């Protein structure tokens, strides 16, 4: 477990500048929210909150899809895997690292959302539930992207991830809402996007648990694929 934590923390540390930029963005928007008349502008505040929430999903795909590629291109992966670290542990570290990076963002968003939306009358408990939904969606989206990045370059990995995450959403629209839960990233995102002051929505833990289980499944699949990949050759 120690190598997994070390790799995860190291990943988050390596991504510190994008994470810091995102955190500053969240804080800036929260500050702007605080200086406005929250009761008159509350719909705008909620809109900005949702927008920030959706960004993190895109960033989780970006973090997951480029993690292995960057490490291979810089050849730093050789230093890590030359130690007593299995490939499965290495991938676990990256999945955890992506989740930590997105979790930090969601935590900051939850804090600022509590200040701004809480003042405007949005239930604070609901804000944190939405953040849990987001973290679960990010972990799953990041793991799917990581799986594709074990054998595709980041651009194609992101494309493939978009297709895999988008197809259940499309099926949900065309064939019935249950199909949306096949890979519940869209459903979890929709929980956030569809929240409103009038109907904050019902807190259903089912998609969160499903996302956690699927994250585990995709992680296992990634580890299986990654165990066959030659890591010391040119990544292109």
């Amino acid at each position: 477990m120690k190598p997994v934590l070390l790799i995860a923390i190291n990943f988050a540390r390596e991504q510190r500048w994008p994470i810091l930029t995102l955190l500053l963005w969240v804080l800036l928007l929260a500050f702007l929210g605080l200086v406005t008349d929250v009761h008159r502008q509350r719909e705008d505040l909620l809109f900005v909150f949702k927008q920030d929430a959706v960004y993190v999903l895109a960033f989780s795909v970006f973090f997951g899809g480029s993690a292995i590629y960057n490490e291979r291109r810089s050849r730093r992966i050789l230093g890590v895997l030359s130690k007593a670290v299995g490939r499965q542990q290495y991938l676990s570290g990256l999945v955890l690292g992506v989740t930590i990076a997105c979790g930090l963002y969601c935590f900051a968003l939850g804090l600022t959302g509590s200040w701004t939306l809480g003042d405007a009358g949005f239930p604070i408990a609901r804000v944190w539930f939405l953040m849990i939904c987001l973290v679960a969606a990010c972990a799953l989206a990041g793991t799917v992207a990581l799986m594709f990045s074990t054998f595709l370059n980041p651009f194609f990995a992101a494309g493939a991830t978009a297709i895999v995450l988008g197809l259940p959403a499309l099926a949900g629209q065309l064939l019935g809402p249950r199909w949306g839960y096949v890979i519940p990233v869209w459903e979890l995102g929709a929980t956030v996007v569809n929240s409103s002051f009038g109907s904050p929505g019902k807190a259903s833990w089912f998609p969160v648990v499903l996302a956690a289980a699927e994250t585990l499944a995709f992680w296992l699949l990634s580890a299986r694929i990654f165990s066959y990949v030659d890591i010391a050759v040119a990544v292109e």
Partner: protein
Amino acid sequence: MRIVLEFDNVAKEYRSFASRRRLRALDGFSLAVEAGEIFGFLGPNGAGKSTAIHLAMGFMRATSGSGRLLGEPFGHPATRRRVGFLAESVALYHRPAQRLVRFYGALNGMGGTHLENRARQVLEIVGLQDHANRNAGKFSRGMLQRVGLAQAMVNDPELLILDEPTSALDPLARVMVRELLLRARNAGKTIFLSSHLLSEVELVCDRVAVLHRGRLARLGRTADLLQAGEQTEIVVRAIAANHFDGAIARDGVVSFSVPAHTQRAALEKVWALGGEVVSVNPRRRSLEEIFLEVTAEPPSSPGAGVS
């Protein structure tokens, strides 16, 4: 003698997905490295040296054949706890040298004051004790290579696998690395050293293998390889240069080399021609000559040319 690194008829083929081209980097490669020796692994660029090392470290899988590292099949993570590895192009995270070495030590399961002391110790060994708190991202290539060596040694490994460890080092640092390798061998460690610096290899290695186009072209004790085909250099006066093949006339003397076993006949010929012998010196071959000889040969069948 215990074998610590073993390749058994290993082949590695790279396949290009787009062009469907295949490149055989290793072909029928077999080798056994014994415990307690410094083993030199030589070959021109593209010979397959790094491929062999990466297979041993478990970074890639062999197309066919197998190998063992410290008694376990290649790619066994727990075994790597007893191995130190330095890659050809050192790539490290940007953080203070001491923290970096501690990070790599921690990945090997080390911790606490033992790791802290060991990190300090290895940085001192590679001469970076005064730069321990400087960010490795701002280091020169030579300093990076030294941090790389430090992280490879932090776990006090039984086997050190070093891919071009001195390529970016200045002569002083090279001497330091050479002494470090000799000390490690005296302490019972095994060193598998891939290098293009043949003079270094000649000085420290007990045995060498020369790889050419993915196949083992030469293997033997360094001293034996250098002695094989030993030559004698003869310098004479008062005869014409055209009496001996390859003779060079300069400053009133003629110098030429002959195989050691024909030395007597050559001297008698000089005297018969009325010449005067100025000097007779045994001339050992250098690894460079052997290297050039091997790389000039056409590719052999697997295992051929192994002495």
